[in-house]
């Protein structure tokens, strides 16, 4: 599993020097039980299952501040995206089907949010 995450993300978590600049930059810190530097550590030590169960991976805003600021070019956000993908692939289905969209449509809702709901929405 660890290898899968590394392959999907293209990230080498061993490059991390545990400075915590990603976590210091993260605007969604308070919404997560695991924080960016922990994501990296958990992938490296193989705690992937825990990460996949975590709600925090969906509260990540994908703002890429951690990617931008990381001095070692570890790119934690890519790892988080890879874990989300792993969750999807594992279940072999999306949480939202295209047919469900019509009834959930809200004129106030930006289209981007609908697109991201394909991968983030959870009952």
């Amino acid at each position, binding site marked *: 599993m660890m290898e899968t995450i590394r392959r999907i993300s293209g990230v080498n978590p061993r*490059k991390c*020097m*545990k*400075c*915590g*600049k*990603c*976590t*210091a*930059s*993260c605007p969604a*810190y*308070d919404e997560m039980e695991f*924080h960016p*530097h922990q994501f990296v550590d958990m992938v490296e030590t193989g705690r992937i299952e825990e990460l996949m169960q975590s709600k925090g991976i969906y509260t990540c805003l994908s703002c890429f*501040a951690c990617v931008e*600021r*990381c*001095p*070692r*070019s570890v790119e934690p956000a890519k790892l988080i995206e890879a874990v989300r993908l792993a969750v999807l692939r594992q279940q072999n289905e999306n949480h939202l089907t295209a047919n469900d969209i019509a009834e959930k449509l809200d004129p106030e809702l930006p289209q981007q949010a609908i697109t991201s709901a394909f991968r983030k929405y959870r009952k």
Partner: protein
Amino acid sequence: MQRIGVFVCWCGSNIAATVDVEKVSQVLAQEPGVVFSTNYQYMCSQAGQEMIQESIHKYQLTGVVICSCSPRMHEATFRKTCEKAGLNAHMVEIANIREQCSWIHKDMATGTEKAVILGRAAIAKVHLNAPLTAGQSPVKKRALVIGGGIAGIQTALDIADAGFDVDIVEKQPTIGGKMTQIDKTFPTLDCAACILTPKMVDAAQHEKIHIYSYAEVEKVKGFVGNFQVTIKKKARYVDETKCTGCGLCTEKCPQKKVPNAFNLGLDNRRAIYIPFAQAVPKIATIDADYCTMLKSGKCGVCSKVCTAGAIDYKQTDTYIEEEYGAIVVATGFNPIKLDKYDEFAYSQSPDVVTSLEFERLMNAAGPTGGTLLRPSDGAHPHTIVFVQCVGSRCDDEKGKPYCSKICCMYTAKHAMLCREKYPDTDVYVFYIDVRTPGKNFDEFYRRAVEEYGVHYIKGMVGKVVPQDGKLKVQASDLLGGSQLHIEADMVVLAAAIEPDETARPLATMLTASMDTNDFFTEAHPKLRPVESPTAGIFLSGACQGPKDIPETVAQASAAAAKVIGLLCKDSLTCNPCTAQPDELMCNGCSSCEKVCPYGAITYADKEFRGPNRTTLLRRVAQVNPAVCQGCGACTVACPSGAMDLKGFSNQQIMAEVDAICR
């Protein structure tokens, strides 16, 4: 026919683990001309060397092939061994079966096969080797030190104390370098100026030392023992022989809005200036970029107030030519520019400063007279956040991949001094690792934490946002497991250090090698740390790598010792492997003359015998063997193949290639 002996070294298990040394010596024994072949555990040991010498006598060897480590490691050793046994040093060839073979191959069969091939090539070359005798070249007993910081000063003082003349070339108007800008020095907290300025004065007053301030090295020619250097003395528009350093001009100059480089632009100075009170030499300099007189011809106030009549607006750059036996590079370092680090708001708020700027703000001779005040409003800061590793240990294009080494200690010093002078301040230090190897260094850092109550937090600052006159700092506390939000009055960034920007062009001039970070490379990282691989060039201080003051001074003295060792000699043994033109083949095209980096090749008209008892006058290349360094550039440039390098002739190289391809 040569009588060749082959000696295969095991290098313990370094070679023997991947190369079947027994087989190599057996196979090579079958080569034509080989009369003796053996292998031994450590060929470079006393016993190994004696074995070679005995074999030379016993088998009347005329050539020796040693299959061992790189010739850079032990060629000189084995040449000496054979010379003692009566063989010419250039009848010895090394086949590198360690670096080029055992270390890079994993498979025994492949390693052995390659070792045999390399051995064959060396044997083929020895067949064509001829004894060479080295000439002598004189040593100019004068040293040049480039850079007048603490490294350059210490090196110059040590060389001068040994009785040799030394010139210091410093690009700034004063010597002293970065140390003049520092307030206190770790770990003893003695004042930097108090320990540095006496040394500056010593250097200036030493009869053997000449200081070229406000000068740069323009051109370097020659080689070890005989460098010809052109030094450019930049126009300072002040006659150095007349100026008394009274400083009256620097008070009367009407151009007051010049950023003061000595205080890193934290305050202003005049267009004519003396960098600081203890400057050496204490001579005023006109900043041509700001002087109204030089720009528009209207002013002349400094000239009017100068009682010594030292001001000379018509001064121009002058060039000095001097000969040196040795050159020491001491070009030092600079903090990196932080304009790529927007997250720390360095360019947005004047209250975000670099550590070197912070030194000036704490310094009694600095812009605030030693009282720590915020640059934005001059208020006393109550919360100060220090951020370490800004630009150090980065693998992106913004920063540097290395640890800058000095930041942990100076940050501990800054934090400690803040708490000592202003106990009402809250001081935070964000660190990734605290690295304090060094005598009394870790004790110093612990004192900052335990006695002075500095908050050391494992984590990094993510962003700094200037808001309502405060700096909102968002950071991580990895050990506490929280994200911190601190309202700070000042943020101090420990910027990475990089080599001075003059280092790269200088390295080109000196043909001295550098690493990818523009630090000068040493001849050997452990065993020859103060010499450049280029003979006669020595390294002192931070130009070789990040260093603190004690280390810099130690290295400066080490470099001086090496220079003294060189200047003590009356002459140097030349490299006998010099270029040699075949005059009958030379067509006089000058290609070789153009590529020669040492100016060793000249052309002369020479008479040759033509057909039918006529004489022909032809222009042919001539090599000065005392100047030629045997680089071989001419041999490849020559279109007619007339140029050969003794000991590395085209014929010898081709014989090696043939042996490899056999």
